[in-house]
């Protein structure tokens, strides 16, 4: 068993990492699950997080970043209070997902992958949410909106602060 040693002074945060790491043995195969738990807890993968993982799994920070950046799930900037995911799967594309995405960009003045200045929303494009028969689909936090139109958009966005 690996024991995790404190690297930085920030005790509050460190406890979170210790909690997350305690469920793992410290094998290389644990890297992706650990990254997923960290993102669940903090919303994104910070430089500091990578610094914490490195001694635990005994792999270099470079390698960790290499793996993390390969997968589209991981983000490296702080998310907004609400996360919008616009599905751009095939069925959604055919039924106007791109137009919906652009309408959101216009409405919130934000580009995919970014967070609005007031941190109210972040916007992501995703490959497929798996609700293709209800296209076009978007997801805000845990709520899924199906058969979306540009018209309904404003009203829906107003429900989130």
């Amino acid at each position, binding site marked *: 068993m690996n024991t995790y040693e404190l690297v930085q002074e920030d005790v509050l945060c460190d406890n979170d990492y210790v909690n997350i790491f305690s469920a793992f043995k410290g094998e290389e195969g644990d890297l992706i699950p650990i990254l997923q738990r960290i993102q669940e807890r903090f919303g994104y993968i910070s430089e500091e997080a990578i610094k914490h993982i490195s001694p635990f799994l005994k792999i270099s920070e470079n390698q960790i970043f290499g793996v993390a950046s390969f997968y589209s799930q991981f983000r490296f900037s702080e998310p907004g209070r609400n996360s919008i995911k616009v599905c751009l799967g095939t069925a959604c594309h055919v039924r106007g997902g791109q137009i919906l995405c652009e*309408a959101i960009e216009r409405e919130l003045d934000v580009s995919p992958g970014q967070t609005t200045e007031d941190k109210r929303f972040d916007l992501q494009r995703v490959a497929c949410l798996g609700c293709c*028969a209800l296209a076009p689909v978007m997801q805000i936090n845990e709520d899924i909106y199906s058969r979306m139109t540009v018209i309904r958009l404003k009203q829906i966005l107003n429900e989130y602060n």
Partner: protein
Amino acid sequence: MNIINLQKKIKKAQKKWDLLKTSKVPVIYLGAASCGQAAGAMDVLESVQKTLKENRLEAKIVQVGCIGPCYLEPLMDITLPGRPRISYSNVGPKRAKNIIESYLIKGDPRIKLAVGHFGDENCDFTNGIPRFFDLPMLKPQVRVVLRNCGFIDPEEIDHYLANEGYMGIMNAFRKGPEKVIAEVKEAGLRGRGGAGFPTYKKWEICRNSPGKTKYMICNADEGDPGAFMNRSLIEGDPHAVLEGLLIAAYAIGANQGYIYIRAEYPLAIIRLKKAITQMREYGFLGKNIQDSGFDFDIAIKEGAGAFVCGEETALIASVEGERGMPRSRPPFPAVAGLHGMPTIINNVETLGTLPNILRNGASWYKQYGVQGNYGTKTFSLVGKVRRPGLIEVPLGMTLRKIIFDIGGGSRKPFKAVQTGGPSGGCLSEEFLDTPIDYESLGAAGSIMGSGGLIVMDEDTCVVDIARYFLDFTQKESCGKCSPCRVGTRHMVEILESIAKGQGQANDLAKLQVLGETVKRGSLCGLGQTAPNPVLTTLRYFRPEYLLHVTEKHCPAAVCRELIEYRVVPEKCTGCQRCVSVCPTGAIIGPRAEPHNLDPSKCIKCRACYEICRFDAIAGDAIVIRSKRRIPDEQTK
């Protein structure tokens, strides 16, 4: 000892199931898979609970998986004691309240709102309601893999057991691994992940490979945009997949199993975790499973979003915690896979089929399908089709039957169907009579793939669709092989310039050469198939490409640089709805007079087109026209 235990558990499960079937109180079934929830099933559930409480009614509520016809979602079914189950479609919270109040209190089943019943053919009660499985979408279908979806509570192992669940693995234990492999060989089962490699062959290689430790992996990384068969199966009947995993592991002699599943499928992951816990409680996981001497355990690995991880060797790299990049084969994973040990990776549907084969025998399974392509296949039928949804058909059915009989065709004239997701091909009308099997689709330049069927009508532009697919695979290319990394990029650029009306005369020839190079020069299935959408559209829809290149005209009015929005003055009533939604103020005009759309301000966001309501009276008052036609009209 264990076997006696199991008999007891089955009896108990049977009792529980019978109790539900012959319930003294009404039973309300809700389709609550991800798609049902997206359509609003949770609001319906809330309304049902509230209505029952307000009226002090007693009823059982069962949340079931997806039964298939997504266009009817949300679905709510009601069974009253002694009566057949009646299905109601497109139920919102209000309608749910209405139906419950009139059926449960007044005994009026609201026949007009019902779509179908699940009783016998000569059931006397159902005056006028058709049988659910006689609906045009369901009649041509069969239910083998999806047999339990929509009927059992997926979070109840007892429901699965009562429906002959885990009988397949018990038969397998009686037969022994060699005979299990022989049975699957006899059934002619081929990998349902897309390539169609005979399942038994892979197993045999793995079984005969030396190695103390072997691994069995379920590939649930359903990355094809436009496909949701695997998600629906896991959400609707997780134990079927797990039993299949157990059977496969037993056949090859693996003691550790993994399920590699997309993190984007949270509900499927929850259901799998619950099911695995129940399996352990019932003695289907752990040491000496049901006294067979076989040990097995399952762990879930959540994918982190990389399409290429559907490829076997990339998936293994990902499970090992590395970048999901494929490696060259041989050695195949069946010889040297996870941690260098013999590993079998089977698709969710392949595994979901196994319990049926082991339970009913190979000859039973072979009644479905055609020579060389036995069995059934699930498809997600989506796009421009009247009745989209999850379907299961015997292999060998024609595309025409699937798209028109089951799917009801498209509203506007049919143009093409994309099979096999982004790796597949776009087939034109002349291929509609092609039977769905691995070889016929391959001969047409497409692939079976995992089962996405995307229907396109005349409003879909093939250049746009080819660009879309290629853009997807280009972004998902892992970057290992230069032809795939650079070639797809270059192809996307060419397609973009064609869509913008900047195409050159030799662009089509360039695309062809590039496409063939990428196919030949890539290690894995992603690169080898990525150019398929472009190559097939070039082959079957060349005139449309030529119109884009030579006349700068997009007949489907999709390519944005080549179209213009206009108000048709004769049809416009001056209602000002479009004025209110236009984000750039491009539409002006006083109330009750035809509006004016200023093309120089228009950003082509489509908001006006969508909100214009005068299609019911006189056709759309706002039209999208290809630019080319405008000068023609002006000269007239």
